[in-house]
């Protein structure tokens, strides 16, 4: 076997094993860590196909940023307890597996058709020399990104700004809203109105007599 074949099958085993682990893992922390395994394996696939820039970005953005964000939220919310396997809809599990099998068959049937266009190098070649120079992968991607896809590139900047603003707005809790939430939670926990007001009075007294 060639080196490429060895690396490919190693990475394929990691990717598929990690993906299956994400699906069947019962602890969300384990799922997140297995997701890292799959993401790194996909990054290895990128490297095997001479897409060095995408490989680096995959490691930095996905494994570095996105999964860490997942782990932050898991830790923050304390949802790292195991999920019960009892499903409220009994037929959902076999139906999901059956739909997955149909989806896979569909992908393979569609992939067996002929090419839509067959056109190659519509957006710049990966191998051909440009202006007599041998460009690296990063230079080739950058050339296309900042010429053909400039408008889309600017739009992604807008998208990121919207996402940041949206995340802040969603995660923020204003003063009145926070009090209301606390109130609702107190009611859920079975604390009566009287106890709540007593507690509030005690708080006030503590503040007055330090």
């Amino acid at each position, binding site marked *: 076997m*060639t080196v490429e*074949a060895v690396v*490919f099958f190693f990475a394929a085993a990691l990717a*598929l094993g990690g*993906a*299956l682990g*994400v*699906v069947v*893992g019962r602890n969300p922390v384990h*799922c*997140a860590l297995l*997701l890292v395994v*799959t993401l790194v394996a*996909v990054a290895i*696939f*990128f490297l095997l*196909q001479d*897409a060095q820039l*995408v490989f680096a*970005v*995959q490691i930095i953005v*996905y494994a570095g940023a*996105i999964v860490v*964000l*997942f782990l932050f*939220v*898991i830790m*923050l*919310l304390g*949802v790292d307890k195991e*999920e019960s396997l009892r499903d409220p809809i009994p037929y*959902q599990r076999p*139906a*999901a*597996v059956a*739909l*997955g099998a149909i989806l896979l068959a569909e992908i*393979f049937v569609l*992939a067996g058709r002929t090419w839509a266009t067959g056109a*190659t*190098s*519509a*957006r*710049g070649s*990966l191998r051909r020399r440009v202006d007599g120079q041998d460009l690296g*992968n990063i230079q*080739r*991607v950058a050339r*296309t990104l900042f010429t053909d*896809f400039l408008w*889309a590139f600017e739009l*992604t900047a807008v*998208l*990121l700004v919207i*996402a940041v603003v*949206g*995340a802040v707005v969603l*995660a923020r809790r204003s003063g009145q809203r926070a009090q209301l*939430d606390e109130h*609702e939670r107190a009611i859920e926990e079975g604390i009566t109105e009287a106890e709540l007001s007593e507690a509030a009075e005690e708080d006030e007294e503590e503040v007055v007599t330090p």
Partner: protein
Amino acid sequence: MSLAALDITPNYYLVVGALLFTIGAVGLLLRRNVLVMFMCVELMLNAANLTFVTFSRVLDDVGGQVIVFFTLVVAAAEVAIGLAIIVAIFRRRRGATADDVRLLKG
């Protein structure tokens, strides 16, 4: 074909991509923990990225790799917003399973 002369054609990558996508889709249907459902969406996005890069090599077209960038940006924005929504839901009710929010009202 003997094992010694095994050549990794682009089809191998496409098959792995298809399998990854299917695993992600099945996981999305199976799981009820919203966070894990999100991870399954990431798996599907990654499968699509792998397919893009593979076709980029097959068709000798750098556009496939550029599209992966846009997918990454959209995935990052989606995770930021999605996790913020999960945190917001979690503040209101003590649970993050899909069953908790099936009525689409507070």
